[in-house]
């Protein structure tokens, strides 16, 4: 996640100025640091929902592409019964 300059706060500030940090997060993501390491990001409700929607859209896109490919394989006769594949798996990845 990219944050703009100045949008980084120390974890101790969450205790001393929680309202201020949250107000800042409403304007854009805030990186929370412990010493010099980022440990968390705080984001607004709108941004969180946007991320969830993007995540769901990506999931749908992956399903759609994979499904189209799998159905295309079946249509062209390029498929196998799983029993055969399982037999190959047993031979190819044997117990050491």
């Amino acid at each position, binding site marked *: 996640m990219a944050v703009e300059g100045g949008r980084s706060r120390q974890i101790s500030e969450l205790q001393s100025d929680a309202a201020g940090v949250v107000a800042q997060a409403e304007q854009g993501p805030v990186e929370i640091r412990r010493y010099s390491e980022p440990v968390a990001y705080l984001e607004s409700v709108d941004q969180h929902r946007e991320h969830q929607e993007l995540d769901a859209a990506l999931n749908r896109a992956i399903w759609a592409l994979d499904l189209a490919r799998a159905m295309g394989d079946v249509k062209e006769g390029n498929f196998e019964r*799983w029993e055969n594949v399982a037999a190959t798996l047993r031979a190819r990845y044997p117990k050491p």
Partner: protein
Amino acid sequence: MGKRGRDAARQVPQALGAAPRPVIIGRYAKAELFELLDYVQAQSPRNANLVAERISKELERIARHPETRAPEADVPGLPDGAVARKATVSGYTIRWVYPFVVDAEPSVLVVSIRRGSRRALNDPAYLLRWLEERARHEP
């Protein structure tokens, strides 16, 4: 015997008695699975064997009960009447569609078997290869 015990007792014969549906996998999903397991085998042959066994067992379970998992919402391109589902075993996610009719027989179509919840696509190198592959094959 408590309620849970009675429920479990009822489920055992059902589990044993369910007739397995045919399970099929397309060429590409199969190649992707082997590619992944080859990679695991190069790190640890024992892990590759364990993962292969667990995936096989899970698919045997799916063959007997292809409708026990919650349907995936809003999957574009599903054939009429078919439902998309997924299950995760040892960190590998199996996606399938059922019923998928092949030769007039309702079958389980395995759509993909990947490491992670989605998402071998977390790896940028894999994503690039995946997109290049799509670009070559998709109309």
